[in-house]
């Protein structure tokens, strides 16, 4: 007896014998974008702001902690849903956060349903989500986040404010640059998410509104590698 799988594949093979699949000629190679002399950081900042994110920095390593603290305070943070500070590329961040009095919620969700539900409800109380980023895409102002140990997916989604720390050297020109090398990263991580500005909807009379489900505010703190 054929399984559904076998049957569907057989049907497809049979169909391909008679399929009419028109295809145009290969178009001329598109002109590669003229080597942008514009600084990637400047492009990133402009595009991220155009989609409603707030961009800070680049800040040097010695200024980073103070900047982060300032942005968190301004966002009204008391409880944080955060990546493991060791994943965010700022030395001493864990200590700074503790010293400044931010409460860091445990992001690990238990597997069993009852405890998971309880944990989720608690995580829902965080005012700010704090994450790093594994890349930025300049021409769309996009953050790339990878899930993994110490990097909860919900940190950039649940709280109404998301603060992301992005090393400036990780900014790529565009989505195409990212995707051309992304196969291994995709396979190695349960979730890659590309975020371009705060959550939005236009579902009521096409009126644009921020903060539908994901954060209504996104702050990106660019991190420089060295002191100026």
């Amino acid at each position, binding site marked *: 007896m054929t399984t*559904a799988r076998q049957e*569907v*594949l057989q049907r*497809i*093979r049979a*169909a*391909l*014998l008679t*399929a*009419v*699949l*028109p*295809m*145009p000629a*290969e*178009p*001329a190679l*598109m002109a590669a*974008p003229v080597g942008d002399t514009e600084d990637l950081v400047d492009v990133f900042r402009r595009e991220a702001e155009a*989609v409603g994110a707030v961009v800070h920095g680049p800040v040097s390593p010695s200024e980073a902690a103070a900047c982060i603290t300032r942005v968190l305070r301004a966002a009204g943070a008391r409880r944080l849903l955060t990546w493991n500070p060791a994943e965010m590329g700022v030395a001493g961040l864990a200590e700074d956060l503790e010293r400044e009095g931010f409460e860091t919620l445990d*992001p690990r969700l238990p597997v069993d349903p009852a405890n998971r*539900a309880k944990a989720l409800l608690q995580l829902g109380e965080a005012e700010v989500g704090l994450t790093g980023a594994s890349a930025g895409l300049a021409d*769309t102002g996009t953050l790339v986040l990878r*899930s*993994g*140990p*110490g990097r*909860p*997916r*919900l940190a950039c*989604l*649940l709280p109404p404010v998301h603060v992301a720390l992005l090393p400036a050297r990780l900014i790529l020109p*565009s*989505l*195409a640059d990212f*995707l051309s090398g*992304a*196969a291994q990263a*995709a*396979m190695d*991580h*349960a*979730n*890659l*998410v*590309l*975020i*371009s*500005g705060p*959550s939005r*909807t*236009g*579902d*009521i*009379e*096409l*009126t644009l*509104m921020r903060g*539908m*489900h994901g954060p209504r505010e996104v702050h990106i703190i660019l991190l420089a590698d060295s002191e100026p």
Partner: protein
Amino acid sequence: MKGTRVAFHSRVSLALKDVPLRSALDRATTRLQSMREIGLTSLADPDAVRDRARRLRASTLQRLDTHLEAFETAVVARGGQVHFARDAAEARRIVLELAASHNVRRVVKSKSMVSEEIGLNPALEEASVEVIESDLGEYIVQLAGETPSHIIAPAFHKTKEQIGLLLHEKLGIPLTVDPATMMAAARSRLRDVYLTADMGISGVNFGVSETGTLCIVTNEGNASLSTSAPRLHVALMGIERLVPTMADLSLVLPILIRSATGQKLSVYLDFITGPRRLVNGGDPDGPSELHVVLVDNGRSRVLGSELAEILYCIRCGACLNVCPVYREVGGHAYGSVYSGPIGAVLTPALHGAGVGSELADASTLCGACKDVCPVRIDIPRMLVRLRSNAVEHGELPLSFRLGLRLFRLAATWPWLFRAAARLGRIVTRALADQNYFRRLPGPLSGWTAQRDLRGFAPKPFSTLLAERRRKRP
């Protein structure tokens, strides 16, 4: 099928009288059209992109079996599970069984046209599983007990007054016409749902066969939340929605998103590969299980037919926004999950057996859809193909069949053509008022209800030509 044709005309008639609907449609389609046009300006060569995207769709479908097998292997290699569903009933069964075996009481859904197509929500509800749509437009439509009227903006047929009243009635919030207040109420209700749902069900914009990745596009972040918070993720995907590689996405995503909303990228692009990982201490969150349901439901049959090109569709909705017919009647008039130009082909194609064949007639073949399609689908050609199938199945009304046969005879025998024209002139002299008909019988009465019809000229061109040539040889 006469019954469905009559039903269609009745829905159309209702829609044409619905003034708020028509003004909402006008506003929304105009807006979305102009957003798309603005969006395309940020592409150096949109036509080349469309050609490439079309080639990608064609070449992927040409090897669909191979790509599906590779996709399945890759998903499983990362801990996901793959289920094939031959038809809607089987797809529903798979999801219901997953819900039952995992003690699922509540489902949160992000937008999935396939889930509508297979009738999933009613089936889940019948099995006492609560289903809540998370996309704001879908949520509104669900509260109203309706179906979506547009692929991208499901509730755009509703005014904010109507939505305010709906939320007041269903959520108990004070009556308001402020969209921000409405959004806040929906957001608050839906957050509860994310945090307490047992299963998240999503659609898939593109499956990537090299990596087993599900690519999902949203602006609200509802797919990200629906697929990260609950312990189970079930993804529904039509078998044709594959691209071979991650790099291929850089071709289709920019043109999909610009065609749909004019943005360069949606706010959220999720790439999901397998469930929550367990290595190195394990991912802190994410679903413990990922199930991908690959739905055929007529697609393989369409693939083998002359309508295969309709499978290139990447569900951007641009054709709906430019269709002059859709703009007058809206999505519900089509009476099917897929509406607009894409629906007029996809619905009869998927279902066969004359279902939705009246939709092929609801077009002037103006070609606006083909003009905006990011993968250049030749919808007019396929509408004619559907009409020709209907003719072959004897569905053309006798009066039209006879009329066209007579016309063909007249067109093949010039003397008959001239005789018919002479008859036309006689009828015009007899019945027309100053060469215009104001009322005509039978099928032509539809025309004269709203329009005059010019009659035959007293002398045809060939006569005038002969006279002219005599005067100036």
